[in-house]
């Protein structure tokens, strides 16, 4: 279960809501649990509907609290996830480096993001299970980068098991969200929480970007 509420309130400058999506079994929950609890459970069960996790982090001189909504991969639960797309600030799009179909299904996932989330919402492509990919890689780094570039997002390979690039992935999506805010506001990063991302996803989003 998620270890929610890792920090008391009033101690953050920004709150970002992040949705983690992708096929069943690609490693979404392992990734988010590694971030929020710093553990790797080999006996983790399938996510049903949606799970919530929280993580407090530092980005440059800002204290950022990430609300992470970890969704189930099965199609039938996407109606549940849809409610959580609203007001999201970033999307982590996951696939399994050792399972090519999960890479091939990315187009369907990105299409869903286009339909449900804020136009131009920052996305990050994550290739999970880089440890297993050493012996059983089914998606090359080059083709994943090419796909990410085509969809205007960054790509990062992670291993929740070996704690590889997990923090970096969440740092990257946080950075993308800040840059998105900067683009939309047309000015430098706000310094106070009043100028933070609108959590309802209503204000400060007049522009539309082609990103996912």
């Amino acid at each position, binding site marked *: 279960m998620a270890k929610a509420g890792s920090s008391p309130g009033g101690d953050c400058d920004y*709150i970002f809501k992040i949705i983690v999506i992708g096929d069943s079994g690609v490693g979404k929950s392992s990734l988010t649990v590694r971030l929020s609890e710093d553990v790797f459970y080999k006996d983790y069960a399938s996510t049903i509907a949606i799970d919530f996790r929280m993580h407090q982090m530092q980005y440059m001189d800002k204290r950022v609290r990430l*609300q992470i909504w970890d969704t189930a991969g099965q199609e039938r639960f996407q109606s549940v996830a849809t*409610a959580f797309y609203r007001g999201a600030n970033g999307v982590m799009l996951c696939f399994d480096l050792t399972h090519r179909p999960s890479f091939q299904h990315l187009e369907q996932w990105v299409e869903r993001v286009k339909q449900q989330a804020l136009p131009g919402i920052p996305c990050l492509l994550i290739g999970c299970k880089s440890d297993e990919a050493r012996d059983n890689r089914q998606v090359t780094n080059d083709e994943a980068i090419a796909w990410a570039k085509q969809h205007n997002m960054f790509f990062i390979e992670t291993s929740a098991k070996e704690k590889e690039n997990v923090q970096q992935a969440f740092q990257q999506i946080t950075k993308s969200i800040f840059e998105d805010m900067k683009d939309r506001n047309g000015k430098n990063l706000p310094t106070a929480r009043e100028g933070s991302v609108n959590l309802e996803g209503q204000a400060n989003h007049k522009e539309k970007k082609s990103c996912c």
Partner: protein
Amino acid sequence: MHTRDALDVQEPQASHPHAAPPKRAVSQLSRRVKGEGSVPAASASPPPAIILPENCQPRVVDADIQRSLWALFPETTKRMEMRSHLKNMLLRILAHHRDRHYYQGLHELMGYVLYVMAPHRPYEDILPVCERLLCTRWRSFSEPKLANSEALLYAMHAVLAEEDAELAMKLEKCGVGPETHYAVSWVITWYVHCIDNLVVLGRLFDFFIADETDTAVVFFTAAFVLSEREQLLQWIADAEAEAGEIGDDVMVMARVYSKITTLPKTKLEHQTVESVNRLIERSITLRRKYTELVQLEKHNFLDGNVRKLGLLANRRTRNAALRLLWRFLPREWRSPASENKRRLALLTTGIALAAATIAITMGSGDKGGHHRLS
């Protein structure tokens, strides 16, 4: 651990909901299972590929099976053997019942039945039990769409609203209504997904199986949430107090949601059989009072008559909300005259007062006019 390369089934090429029954898939799967008594499937020679109908969702089943039965079968060899049985059981039943659809959580329900029955009955006897449960008690969960399961959550919330309007309204106000699906994994897995206490699970299964409808879990969930009333209200108050510092409603929702979803693990998991029995007794009381309501709410939701918004969008919960507001009115306002005589007297007095007011107003108006004219 076997990888997905070991998959012995193929995904359907296209959606064919009305295609011919998959006799070939069933018979081949049956043959394979019979040969698995002594040799686990993972070590057997790969059988020919089989096309399974879409309702089986073999790719999702495979991903779920690889993450199943950890707690029930801690010994690796046994767990692998049971996973093989579980997968074959799921696919055989679903291939045979194409109107039933695999959902994440069904593997946990069948896994628990397998765990309970395996020491006493041969595998071939367990399969028809799961098949029967799928077609009866788990029917709402395994419909093509999630809506039938969602309808149960809305029905459960309606029971909450009838029994404890304040709690229902506070949950909705902080954004944790039925639309968040906070209880979906409890309901559609009969709590197998949420708790490891096998004694509690056994008692719950007895209660849910004995119920002739599929709504016992709805009433139990309502009873369970109601029993945690004080804890829930405290969590909501704490989250609102915290949000008060940073002014963030979304944070309140996230805080309460993260707490409420842990309720089975933090509370139900540690209950004694006696306390579970008390919850079941309360569930039975709720069932006696609200059977019609639950059926009505289910149909309302499925017919699209309940907007996924909240308390005031729903007639039953709206009534509960209004009742709550009623309680805040001054006592004398809340006590309408019960006797006809008193009602008549009040009406007469009201009419007399209104008539007097009109007469005085008209009189003063005439005087004013007269003054102006003069």
